[in-house]
């Protein structure tokens, strides 16, 4: 093996020693003992790699990401199907449909889907970095801040345009969720909008349903095309006045 080839191989040797036992590196590592120049090169390269790796390890994920992952995956986990034969899956699917129809026909306040969306919105309201850009988002905020203006319906929301022009877009269980902040009657509100074909399907009731938690309150409703949440720290009474 020539020196250039040894350098090439040693370039893939993890600086922390994770590849010590890998025979692919054995010959190149042996050469570093017999060739002082190569040995010095390897020592410098490894020290440099170690320094970069150490700096990279200092980068910390943003606060709240872990909680968002767990909450988002919980939605996904509830959608999963167990490994089973087709016969069992067909039976399970039939049962799910029956249970689903029964559960959603009544849609009492606080259904699972409503709760998940409300939880997500309240968590983001408290922990997220807010702020949208773009004229469409600005126009929506201006409308929402108008005294007595109704909350938006399907005819008012140009979802694609809002998203593409800078409206804050979150990832709710793998699907886009738009958010704008607005103020009315001295209280701050956060409106979230997601498509009806998102992770919750058509599980969100027409509503509005109200959810109150330690971090804040939320109203959740759907117009058949989009699901909406308004979250606030001002309480359910403020939400009722708003809607």
């Amino acid at each position, binding site marked *: 093996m020539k020196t250039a080839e040894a*350098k*090439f*191989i040693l*370039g*893939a040797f*993890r*600086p*922390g020693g*994770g*590849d010590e036992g*890998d025979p692919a590196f054995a010959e190149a590592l042996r050469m570093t003992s017999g060739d002082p120049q190569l040995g010095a*090169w390897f020592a*410098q*390269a490894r*020290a*440099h*790699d170690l*320094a*970069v*790796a150490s*700096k*990279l*390890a*200092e*980068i*910390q*994920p*943003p606060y709240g*990401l*872990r909680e*968002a*992952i*767990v909450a*988002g*995956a*919980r*939605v*996904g*986990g509830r*959608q*999963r199907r167990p*490994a089973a034969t087709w016969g069992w899956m067909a039976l399970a699917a039939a049962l799910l449909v029956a249970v689903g129809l029964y559960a959603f026909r009544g849609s009492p306040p606080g259904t699972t889907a409503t709760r998940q969306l409300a939880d997500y919105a309240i968590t983001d309201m408290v922990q997220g*970095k807010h702020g949208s850009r773009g004229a469409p988002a600005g126009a929506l905020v201006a409308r929402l801040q108008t005294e007595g203006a109704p909350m938006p319906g399907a005819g008012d929301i140009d979802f694609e345009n809002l998203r593409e022009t800078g409206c804050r877009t*979150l*990832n709710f*269980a*793998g699907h886009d969720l738009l958010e704008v902040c607005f103020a009315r009657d001295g209280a701050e509100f956060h409106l979230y909008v997601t498509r009806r074909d998102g992770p919750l399907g058509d599980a969100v009731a027409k509503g509005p349903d109200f959810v109150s938690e330690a971090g804040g309150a939320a109203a959740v409703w759907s117009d058949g095309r989009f699901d909406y949440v308004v979250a606030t720290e001002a309480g359910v009474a403020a939400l009722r006045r708003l809607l």
Partner: protein
Amino acid sequence: MNDEAFAQLVDAQYAPLYRFALSLARNGSDAGDLVQQTFFIWATKGHGLRELSKAKSWLFTTLYREFLRGRRRDARSSSLEDLPPGEKEPAAEDFDRVSKMDAATVMSALQSVDEAFRAPLTLFYLEDLSYQEIAATLDVPVGTVMSRLSRGKAQLRTALSSADSGGKVLPFPQPKGHRHS
């Protein structure tokens, strides 16, 4: 997988996954989305994996695929031959330079490395995966990983020198038709 096991998996992997995502996406918001999306896919599909020991590779692979899926297709069309070479050899002062830098500056320099090199380079520095696992994660031959590590390190050293001399860390020039998201 029950909730407790899932939480343990998140605790063990979400930080290195975020670092990988941050180097690819170049901003914290997109990186967070990528990590969240990756675990969401795990929750919906990955729980079928029988060997939990493969979860780490699966997560990195899925995150990388999600990143590729989310950006423009034409960004994949460039060949390595078009990419600028990097010949800078390591020097003794490189180690001192990096040691004195803050983590954000080093990440910024890493983000300036061309994407073709950046992905394997970041996985290498995370030290979670061997070069064979990196090859499997990125779906490229082992020799390609070694080549990209070599050239990527040279680009990174140049970027770090530039950052140290007070210069702004800029992305390496892209060949025609190659754009980042």
